[in-house]
């Protein structure tokens, strides 16, 4: 059941908030021992909250489309009185005394918090193979990674343990698990959703967004999460729009850009064919498909990687005398960042400005771009390299190559499922839009979802 369906059932009194919450808790009880999607489950408080929300509905007080919807928060998002580990040994006992802005907004919107989802240590990686809390496993193949860093969120939504989960995305950490787990993941525009109360990784690259089972559910969640917050200096005053796309969804007049360069190179054949088929089919909904050449993506990825290395290491420098508290992969990245000179960081931020101007030129010729989300389906747990066009490449660099740069641009990007491989693993496609045009990105996504389903 998705958020829209659950909302309809709640309002027709076919199910109560408490029953809906119990269904999710039962799934967590049954599936979490194998998947390890949750680090903390808040059974008692979830049931109490659900009962309170049932009483509100009985009294005629309806908080809107998220009233009574069971959700989960990524475990680096602060939740008052509930342990928030960030997937790290350093913070394994940290219990915040306040809620992050997204937590309080989703609470006000009527959600029920089921618990906290697992992640890659400090959100600094793409596998969610966590050395302190154990690996999160992919529901579509328990020997596969769910992606990361929001791997627990992707796994939880994929098998109905939660109807929505919050995620964070610094270099693909919402969109990668969405692609690998076969769910929808939205990285909104930088500044669209407040970062207050969310443990940072890359201050100028961090984004907060929802993972859901449908595009319309993501739109509902974004509406509750978005908006100005004076506790986050990067948060925008741009008005929050009506994001939920109509049904059925026309794409009349929408110019969809399909990159001729980079995004369809070094991609598994199945993924390339699935995305290209979807693109062709959008023309039947009135879209105009336009071939475009995008500016150098490798350059953009290098800039984003350099900025992240420096920003993450700056944040964790105070903890670098506790080396045994970090997993090997995260420690290596933090040490790498300490070797990036300040001059290189500053020049990377200057290149970022230049590249942003070049990408904005593309944005004047098309309304959005469609690309694969990840070049392959989910790799195996522990896999370090993958083969692509006869070449062996690093799994982390391969997996992030279509999304890392988008974080440097700050543009909104949505990952939606676009079919399954011969091995029955999900594949995802990415819709990249112009800043603060999440409404258009979600409309294109919903139209594609209607086509694929």
């Amino acid at each position, binding site marked *: 059941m998705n958020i829209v369906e659950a909302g309809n059932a709640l309002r027709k009194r076919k199910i109560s908030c408490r029953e809906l919450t119990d269904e999710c808790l039962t799934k967590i009880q049954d599936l979490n021992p194998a998947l390890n999607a949750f680090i903390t489950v808040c059974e008692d408080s979830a049931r109490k909250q659900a009962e309170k929300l049932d009483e509100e509905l009985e009294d005629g007080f309806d908080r809107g489309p998220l009233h009574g919807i069971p959700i989960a928060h990524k475990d680096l998002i602060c939740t008052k009185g509930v342990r928030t580990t960030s997937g790290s040994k350093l913070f394994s006992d940290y219990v915040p005394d306040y809620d992050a802005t997204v937590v309080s907004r989703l609470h006000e919107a009527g959600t029920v918090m089921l618990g906290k989802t697992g992640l890659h240590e400090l959100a600094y990686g793409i596998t969610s193979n966590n050395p302190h809390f154990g690996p999160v496993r992919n529901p579509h193949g328990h020997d596969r990674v769910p992606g990361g860093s929001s791997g627990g969120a992707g796994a939880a939504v994929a098998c109905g343990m939660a109807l929505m989960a919050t995620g964070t995305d610094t270099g693909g950490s919402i969109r990668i698990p969405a692609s690998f787990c076969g769910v929808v993941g939205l990285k909104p525009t930088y500044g669209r959703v407040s970062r207050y109360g969310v443990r940072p990784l890359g201050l100028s690259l961090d984004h907060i967004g929802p993972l859901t089972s449908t595009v319309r559910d993501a739109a509902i969640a974004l509406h509750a999460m978005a908006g100005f917050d004076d506790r986050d200096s990067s948060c925008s*005053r741009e008005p929050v729009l009506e994001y939920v796309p109509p049904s059925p969804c026309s794409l009349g007049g929408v110019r969809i850009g399909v990159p001729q360069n980079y995004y369809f190179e070094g991609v598994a054949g199945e993924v390339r064919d699935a995305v290209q088929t979807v693109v062709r089919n959008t023309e039947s909904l009135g879209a105009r498909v336009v071939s475009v050449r995008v500016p150098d993506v490798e350059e953009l990825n*290098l800039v984003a990687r350099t900025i992240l290395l420096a920003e993450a290491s700056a944040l964790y420098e105070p903890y*670098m005398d506790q080396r045994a508290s970090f997993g090997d992969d995260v420690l290596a990245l933090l040490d790498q960042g300490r*070797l990036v000179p300040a001059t290189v960081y500053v020049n*990377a931020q200057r290149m970022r400005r*230049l590249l942003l101007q070049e990408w904005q030129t593309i944005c004047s010729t098309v309304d959005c771009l469609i690309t694969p989300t990840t070049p392959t389906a989910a790799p195996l747990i522990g896999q370090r390299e993958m083969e692509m066009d006869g070449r062996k490449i690093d799994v982390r660099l391969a997996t992030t190559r279509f999304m890392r740069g988008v974080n440097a641009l700050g543009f909104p990007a949505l990952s939606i499922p676009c079919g399954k491989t011969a091995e029955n693993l999900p594949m995802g496609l990415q819709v990249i839009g112009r800043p603060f045009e999440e409404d258009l990105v979600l409309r294109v996504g919903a139209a594609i979802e209607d086509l694929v389903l």
Partner: protein
Amino acid sequence: MSTSAIPNDQLERILPTVNDLLSRMNKVFERLSLTTDSALVYELARGDRK
């Protein structure tokens, strides 16, 4: 704030990666000009900063 050194064995492991990144970035920076601003410039004039 800690300024603990990176152990030698770790340095040996990560230096090739870092050196490769820095040399590639130096190539990228050839496109910068004196007037290229930073993405992090504090923009007091923006409506967002009211």
